[in-house]
């Protein structure tokens, strides 16, 4: 059920084109990631809504194909 980091980044970019994305492969196994996503699309939204935008970008893979993605989100400074 592994998913390459580049694919995660591409999916997020497709939905949030201005996003700055940092992805770390936590265990080196292509299955446990941490992502930090910065996008102006998050402005004025609460954390739950911000995370939902990223989950939507991943198109249902979250919780399935992509088991472990620690997520933090922020609005650009």
């Amino acid at each position, binding site marked *: 059920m592994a998913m390459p980091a580049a694919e995660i980044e591409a999916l997020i970019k497709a939905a949030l084109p201005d996003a700055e994305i940092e992805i770390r492969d936590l265990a080196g196994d292509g299955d446990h990631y941490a992502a930090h996503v910065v996008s102006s699309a998050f402005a004025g939204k609460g*954390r*739950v809504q911000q*995370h*939902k935008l990223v*989950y939507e970008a991943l198109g*249902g893979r*979250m*919780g*399935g194909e992509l088991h*472990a993605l*620690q*997520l*933090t989100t922020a609005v650009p400074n």
Partner: protein
Amino acid sequence: MSDANERLSRIVNDHDVVLFMKGTPLFPQCGFSSRAVAILEHCGIDFESVDVLQDMEIRQGIKAFSDWPTIPQLYVKGEFVGGSDIMMEMYESGELQQLLTEKDVAKAS
């Protein structure tokens, strides 16, 4: 409303703080659930935990109920707060403790 939604509404409204998790607070079955339990324990509050691994209807139903794809999930006074990443961010910034105080959630005895 489906049976699962009715059950879930009842659970989140019957308890001040509910954590839907994999496993139990004593034996969490996933690192994210374990982290969520640790955060609530640090906050020193009583919470109800629901082991989704023991109940397929709840396990599937909670994702649609909250419109959130992963477990754990935290509810306070019937409102969805977030998953373990959001809990951690809120805990580190003090927002979680503030929310629990504002919502007048009972401290663990």
